[in-house]
């Protein structure tokens, strides 16, 4: 892929949203005499345009991606890489010279994530049509969030990574806190503080590692020869390295989220507006597992082995706990549709953690593929909830019923999403879950079979929800013309904009379910390299 | 006893005090102006007294000339201002013109 204007495709894909943001800021809000924002359509289409450009670049990256290059700790294995000096600060006390690079590149782990981010952002921008207030600010924030997420996935400099990581938090906070539901402030602050705690752990380790290698380059941090032998993370300091690994793991596990750090997720999902839920579940959760694969695994391969069993337990517990909590939604408190899906996310991300704990190529590939699939599937689920919420202004599962007759197309699409979430063969979720199970079984047979209960529980709660919403009799309030005062809601079927968001995802889910080879080809070399790297302990 | 510097200074001091009193107490702006003239005169007496007895010779007198010049300009401008005030307020009672308070 050619460099355009002297900047590589990764820079373009990451900073395009910034351009969009500037354009959005330049467009006047243009309120007419009634106070209605006249240029809101323009904001929407600008956002869609920029995310679409991003998607095109992402597809271009995919098409020009060379399968078989390794990455992880080999700089030559990264593709589309750009390496410039960002800034250098000299003569700091203690730190000495601090050199921060703009070092980006992708390998088999980040390439699927780039693709996923581009897809989810594009799709979620369609779902953003339901946002009605302060549209200018919303889309500006949205694009900033997009930028942050892309940046996290391309960064190979730890400092840069951290900058993007934090950059992403802020718009998320506002997007939940301003455009969210009734308890938005609580949810936003909870989200923010939770993830900030994780960031603090990460920051501590970053500083520690910096003193070890005197560089923020991630690849240097993976090389035992680059470490100052006196530093606490140098090879041989197993205890300290384990502590650092654990701190990082907790930091990322909060983001995943793994039990018991998951309680921000249901709140954030329930309160966030639909497109933000989509992005939250579709991309943000992946950052935890991505961080583990990019940072935890190769930087602390010795500690990974030490904690392997523990990680597998974390995965198993998350799977079962999330699934049971999702099932428990039918019994406890408000039966909220979004909360159900939020808990199912906990469960599904548990599979990813379980797969990563296996340390073999099936499990790892499955985990990465599951990250991608969970992104597409859960995005679809949240958009689906958003569609019904726009019509009914409720997410209570008890308020629905018998919609299959009223909204047949919607029901069909929803069935695809639900069965994909259950892991039905023919959908991408099946392939990834299968690979995770096959891989994890080689490492921890008993745990794997126990976590297999998750697929039964998954079927139970998903089908339960499906039945609640679509089957049975239509409640009286759902028939008749639109009349919010009497709680009678219109039940027009899904519209074109919503379909535009859902159909690409559905095609992707089914397409990858039938022919997953493109994804696996993309990540094979990297994953095998990582597995081998961790197996030999990386020299630590 | 011969008339010395001290006498002149006492004279100018008394004149100054009277002028000050006029400046502070009178309501009419023109009366205030008159008080000012008294003060300036007391200052001039001092200058010239110093010129006579203080060993500064004619420099004191030159200063007095400038003071007179200043007095003239001051009187001219002050009167112009007073006229202006009169045009605006239809009176020149200076204690009622307390815009500075706000």
């Amino acid at each position, binding site marked *: 892929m050619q460099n355009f204007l002297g900047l590589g495709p990764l820079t373009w894909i990451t900073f395009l949203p910034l351009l969009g943001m500037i354009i959005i800021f330049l467009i006047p809000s243009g309120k007419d005499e009634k106070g209605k924002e006249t240029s809101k359509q323009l904001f929407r289409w600008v956002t869609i345009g920029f995310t679409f450009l991003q998607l095109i670049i992402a597809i271009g990256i995919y098409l020009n991606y060379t399968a078989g290059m390794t990455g992880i700790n080999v700089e030559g294995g990264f593709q589309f890489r750009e390496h410039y000096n960002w800034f250098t600060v000299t003569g700091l006390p203690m730190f000495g010279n601090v050199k921060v690079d703009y070092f980006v590149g992708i390998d088999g782990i980040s390439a699927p994530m780039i693709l996923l981010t581009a897809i989810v952002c594009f799709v979620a921008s369609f779902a953003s049509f339901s946002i009605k207030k302060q549209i200018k600010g919303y889309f500006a924030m949205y694009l900033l969030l997009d930028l942050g997420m892309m940046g996290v996935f391309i960064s190979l400099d730890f400092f840069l990574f951290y900058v993007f990581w934090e950059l992403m938090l802020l718009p998320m906070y506002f997007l939940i806190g301003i455009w969210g539901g009734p308890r938005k402030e609580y949810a936003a602050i909870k989200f923010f503080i939770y993830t900030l705690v994780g960031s603090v752990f990460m920051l501590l380790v970053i500083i520690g590692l910096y003193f070890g290698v005197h560089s923020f380059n991630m690849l240097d941090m993976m090389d035992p020869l680059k470490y100052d032998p006196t530093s606490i993370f140098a090879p041989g300091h197993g205890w300290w390295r384990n502590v650092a690994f654990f701190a990082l793991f907790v930091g990322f596990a909060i983001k995943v989220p793994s039990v018991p750090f998951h309680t921000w997720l249901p709140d954030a999902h329930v309160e966030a507006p639909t497109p933000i839920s989509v992005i939250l579940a579709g991309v943000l959760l992946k950052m935890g597992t991505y961080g583990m694969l990019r940072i935890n695994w190769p930087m602390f391969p010795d500690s990974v082995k030490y904690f392997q069993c523990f990680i597998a337990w974390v995965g198993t517990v998350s799977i079962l706990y999330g699934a049971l909590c999702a099932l428990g939604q039918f019994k406890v408190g408000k039966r909220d549709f979004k909360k159900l899906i939020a808990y199912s996310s906990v469960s599904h991300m548990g599979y990813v953690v379980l797969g990563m704990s296996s340390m073999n190529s099936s499990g790892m590939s499955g985990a990465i593929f599951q990250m991608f699939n969970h992104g597409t599937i859960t995005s679809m689920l949240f958009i689906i909830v958003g569609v019904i919420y726009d019509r009914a202004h409720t997410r209570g599962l008890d308020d629905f019923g018998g919609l299959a007759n009223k909204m047949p197309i919607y029901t069909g699409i929803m069935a695809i999403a639900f069965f994909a979430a259950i892991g039905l063969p023919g959908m991408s979720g099946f392939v990834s879950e299968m690979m995770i199970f096959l891989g994890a079984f080689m490492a921890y047979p008993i745990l794997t079979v126990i976590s297999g209960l998750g697929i039964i529980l998954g079927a139970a709660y998903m089908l339960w929800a499906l039945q609640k919403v679509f089957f049975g009799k239509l409640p009286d309030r759902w028939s008749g013309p639109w009349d919010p005062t009497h709680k009678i809601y219109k039940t027009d079927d899904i519209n074109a904009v919503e379909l535009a968001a859902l159909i690409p995802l559905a095609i992707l889910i089914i397409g990858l379910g039938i022919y997953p080879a493109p994804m696996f080809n993309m990540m094979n070399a990297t994953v095998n390299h990582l597995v081998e790297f961790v197996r030999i302990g990386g020299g630590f | 006893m*011969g008339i010395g510097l001290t006498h002149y200074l006492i004279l100018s001091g008394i004149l100054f005090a009277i002028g000050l009193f006029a400046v502070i107490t009178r309501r009419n702006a023109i009366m205030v102006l008159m008080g000012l003239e008294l003060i300036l005169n007391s200052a001039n007496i001092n200058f010239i007294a110093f010129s006579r007895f203080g060993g500064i010779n004619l420099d004191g007198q030159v200063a007095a000339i400038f003071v007179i010049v200043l007095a003239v300009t001051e009187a001219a401008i002050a009167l112009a201002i007073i006229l202006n005030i009169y045009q605006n307020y239809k009176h020149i009672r*200076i204690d009622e013109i307390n815009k500075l308070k706000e």
Partner: protein
Amino acid sequence: MLEALFYIFAAMIIGSAAVTAFTKNILYAAFALLFTFFGVAAIYVLLSADFLAISQIMIYIGGILVLIIFGVMLTTNVSIVDIKEGFTGKTSFIIAGIFSAITCIFFIYLAFKMPFINHAPKDVKLPNDSTIKPLGKLLMTNYLLAFEVASVVLLIAIIGAAMIARRHDD
């Protein structure tokens, strides 16, 4: 002889100044001011400052006082004959009195206690010829700049005064 003259003129200055300060009638005050200026001019003569004495009479009496009287005429409603303008109030009257008294006493105190008083010559020989020539020389040499500035200031003051006093209704 000179001492008697000094005391006479001093009494005249203080008396007329007091009238200026205390009278309610603004016209009386203006006339009393006339006597004060005369008295001061006389004191200048006693101090052998002839040029200044003449200037005092010409400028103060011929210029400023006339100006003041014009001001009085223009700003006081003569037709209803209420040119008596009172003081700002009893409290301020007393306070101002005390202030002035303190000031007066302070100056007298200074007149006696200032260190240079003792170095001043008791009696200085009066010059015989006029001071006009040396004054003119001084103004044209040492004080040229001040002189020029003063003239500019005068010019500006005249323009300014004319501007300010101009009627604004056109």
